[in-house]
């Protein structure tokens, strides 16, 4: 394989692809984890299980 990147273009492209996949996996993991946790917390709050600090708050 010989392109503008020279005879080792496949190695260069593979390295950048590997980096891209790893960063994409990290971003996806963090976003999906946040969505999952928020859903569970909202579900708990809907069932009346609020945060301790909020349960202790005085209503105006």
């Amino acid at each position, binding site marked *: 394989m010989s392109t503008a*990147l020279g005879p080792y273009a496949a190695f260069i492209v593979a*390295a*950048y692809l590997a*980096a891209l996949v790893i960063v994409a996996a*990290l971003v996806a*993991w*963090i*976003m999906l984890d946040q969505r999952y946790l928020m859903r569970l917390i909202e579900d708990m709050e809907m069932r009346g299980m609020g*945060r301790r600090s909020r349960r202790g708050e005085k209503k105006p």
Partner: protein
Amino acid sequence: MSLIDLANPSRFSELAARLLPWLIAVTLLAFAIGGISAYLAPDDYQQGATVKIMFIHVPAAWLGIFAWVLMSVAALGTLVWRHPLADVAAKAAAPIGAAFTLMCLLTGSLWGRPMWGTYWVWDARLTSVLILFLMYLGVIALWRTIEDPTHAARAAAVLTLVGLINIPIIKFSVDWWNTLHQGASVLRLSGSTIHVSILVPLLAMLVAFTLLFFTLHLAAMRNEILRRRLRTMMMIQAQAAA
């Protein structure tokens, strides 16, 4: 907001939510600048275009090491001050540090094949970085093994501080032993040995990757605070049901 307020996980979450959009924007801008300068960088007179792998390999190596140092500082926060936010910072950093160390190993391997004629060699630099990766996996496993986050944090903090010994070994391995891996060329007391036309894009990518790390770490810390909040709610629910 005073510094002591940031030590409160809820206040920290609020601040993280405000900071994250800005951090994401600055990170994307830094990658645009770094990416263009890396693309436009000239080929190396010996390595040809494969020098472009350096623009991701070196930042990945830097962040793999940096994340462990950050975890070690957080480990002190856990063991000395017993601060819950220190536990959160350490736990959130471990998978990100592991990912960047894996990136360093993979890109280094793909750089090594055309330059050295082999994907892997058991020299001191490569082996010590592989050990760093395995230690990350060990810390992540430890966090997952112990259910109580406070106990898990202390055990992980001790393991992190023990593992800190590997960081100077990684840094100086190329000086202490004969390695196939090249010696230090960026961080040297006598100055960098890299030509400015390649050093500038490398530094731009280092800044971009470091910003990416802080963005991911802040988001992961916010998730960890949510996880602890959820755990508390579930425990209250279990107590109420009992």
